[in-house]
């Protein structure tokens, strides 16, 4: 890490999430498969490596894994997302 200022929560991944899901997802509430707590995706901890991993702020359970490649993005999720209709 360069120490550069960058967001380290789900808010900072807002653009990628929007690319993947078609709308802003930072306010989406996830019910954690690990601890049962409910947190907005924007409040999840974000870790950058070969892509991004979002983890539950309550128990660090892996919530979302985003792979970033030249030609495509990949998405894996865990837990239950409540999506308003």
């Amino acid at each position, binding site marked *: *890490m*360069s*120490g*550069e*200022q*960058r*967001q*380290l*929560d*789900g*808010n*900072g991944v*807002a*653009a990628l999430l*929007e*690319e993947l899901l*078609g*709308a*802003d997802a*930072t*306010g989406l509430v996830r019910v954690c498969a690990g601890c049962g707590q409910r947190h*907005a*995706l*924007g*409040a999840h901890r974000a870790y950058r490596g070969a892509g991004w991993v979002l983890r539950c702020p309550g128990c660090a359970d892996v919530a979302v894994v985003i792979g970033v490649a030249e030609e495509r993005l990949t998405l894996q999720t865990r837990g239950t997302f409540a999506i308003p209709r």
Partner: protein
Amino acid sequence: MARAAVLGRLIGRLAWRTATVREVVAESEHAVTLVLDVTDWPGHRAGQHVDVRLTADDGYQAERSYSISSAPEADAIAITVERIEDGEVSPYFTDVIRPGDQFELRGPVGGHFTWSVSDGGPILLVGGGSGFAPLMAMLRHRAAQDSDVEVHALVSARTDADALYRDELAALGPAEGLHVAWTFTRGGPPGWTGYTRRVDAAMIAEVGPAPARAPRCFVCGPTPFVEWVTGLLVDAGHDPQHIHAERFGPTGGRA
């Protein structure tokens, strides 16, 4: 066809656009505000951010997120950038870039960390270092709307020389309902009688609306600052669902 329309809107919204620097404003010893003209800017809400992409001559690209510090009502968007000594992007923005220079930008993005006057109050804004940028957008929006929604702001800076927007914050209106407190964690300027310590429980109790009034709380800054302040808010009895946080990465130990 509906799908194509949705995708079209989406791709349009998230397209990389050209930003042209209109003005570079020195904010502090370490930070500048870039005022930007952006082609086909779709407008934003206070608290949102943009992704910025720089491309080197050899094709190497670096992307960063920066909060928008200008009000939605302004005719240009502004981002405030703090120089990180070993940073890859920020020294270019703080030391090199000039009016007329261009780079790529997309957004606005993020809907979780936003506020508008129609959401009402009271609200509490707590910013550490350059983390006050998105909170400043909220206060500028409130001023542009001539709103007297009750806002309590607490700004933490190391010294007066590091303080962002200090003169503007002192002059911002409407004064009715607006309460701004500073803490200078490494000592205030001569004659300073305000806080000179790290944000703590007593400060939160003095500055903020009481938890019983259920204020929405917005906390932004380096990760350790945000973890610390949100912990204080929860301990004080604020509803975790009312606490919105936005974290920045390490700031070279200068937080």
